[in-house]
């Protein structure tokens, strides 16, 4: 075989390798960048848009079934007296006055949850506050701060957006990985955990800012909010980690103070 042809074959093999290297490198870059953009920008955007377009009946059904599920698994009936409950309900109604919190079906529920001082919001505006949280709050301002924080979650539609976001990740990864269950399960769990962690921390700050703004409007300051956060920080035994769904109370207090 002539030298020209031999060198031509060698040259074409080298070129081929270089071309495939470029193709693989470009594919990896494009897949990583588009995956990142979809995960960080696309999912929250679509979650917000889809959540907004869902009918109220779905919110209502999710609220009812979630509360029923929690009652069956986690919660016990409240031990607060009727007069105490009525007093807090009146405070809750006063917070809703003016109709600036959107058009969800707000209602307040009292429960016991293993003696934990906690409160939570469901998608359609059901807010659950534990007996220990009521006991921990020494004045209406502190209780208002807790309830306004939960109203903030409902106002920003955090619960539904988180549910829809997780569903989008689940569906997308199923489309990409199909039925390769072991790999897709690991990636899916990791992605949903990461999404919820990041989303949840951001949601907490948004709800804090919302409550802070309303506290300033109602009481002229946010001392009630800071004091209840300080008490909750002292109550929390769990060390804060990067995997926590909530930011640390110290960080939240610092952000609220900085916002004023």
């Amino acid at each position, binding site marked *: 075989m002539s030298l*020209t*042809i031999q060198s*031509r074959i060698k040259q074409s093999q080298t070129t*081929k390798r270089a*071309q495939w290297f470029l193709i693989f490198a*470009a*594919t990896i870059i*494009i897949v990583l*960048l588009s995956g990142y*953009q979809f995960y960080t920008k696309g999912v929250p955007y679509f979650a917000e848009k889809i959540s907004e377009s869902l009918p109220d009946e779905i919110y209502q059904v999710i609220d009812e079934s979630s509360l029923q599920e929690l009652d069956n698994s986690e919660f016990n009936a409240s031990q607060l007296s009727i007069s105490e409950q009525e007093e807090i309900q009146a405070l809750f109604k006063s917070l809703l006055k003016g109709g600036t919190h959107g058009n969800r079906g707000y209602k307040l529920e009292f429960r016991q949850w293993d003696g934990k001082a906690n409160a939570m919001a469901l998608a359609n505006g059901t807010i659950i506050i534990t007996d220990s949280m009521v006991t921990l709050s020494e004045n209406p301002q502190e209780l208002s701060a807790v309830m306004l924080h939960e109203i903030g979650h409902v106002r920003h539609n955090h619960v539904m957006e988180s549910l829809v976001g997780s569903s989008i990740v689940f569906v997308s990864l199923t489309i990409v990985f199909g039925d390769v269950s072991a790999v897709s399960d690991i990636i899916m769990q990791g992605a949903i955990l990461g999404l919820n962690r990041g989303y949840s921390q951001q949601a907490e700050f948004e709800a804090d800012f919302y409550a802070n703004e309303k506290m300033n409007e109602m009481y002229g300051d946010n001392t009630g909010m800071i004091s209840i956060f300080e008490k909750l920080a002292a109550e929390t035994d769990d060390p804060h980690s990067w995997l926590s769904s909530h930011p640390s109370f110290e960080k939240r207090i610092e952000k609220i103070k900085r916002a004023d």
Partner: protein
Amino acid sequence: MDDLAFREQEEALRNKAAQLSSELRKQYYQLEEQLVKDPDTYAVLNYFFAAGLHHFYLGKIARGVVNLVLMLIGLALIPYHGWVLIIFVCVIELPQLFNSQKIVRQYNIDVMREVLDELNNSKQNQTISDD
């Protein structure tokens, strides 16, 4: 160019290759195996992100890099209407997806014609040096 014209060109190349000596014909087919491209691979690389991968496959590195860079800018600027750039690249590249058979066939014909010329030249050079 229609299918008939491609067939004619390919037939002409086959005839020319048949006229080569057995040694040169062997070399021709060895080179053909190395150099020809597959239209299906080209099409898959084209619709896969339209990011210039099909240009890399045909060795059009500069055009591939332009596509890739535009695509990356579009992706990076998604929140600032970067998707317009992505759609623009897709619109530009989409016709090539539908013409992938023709594009790759033409590429293969051009490359093999070049190889034939090269082999014929080397044959002539060989004859002159023998004389």
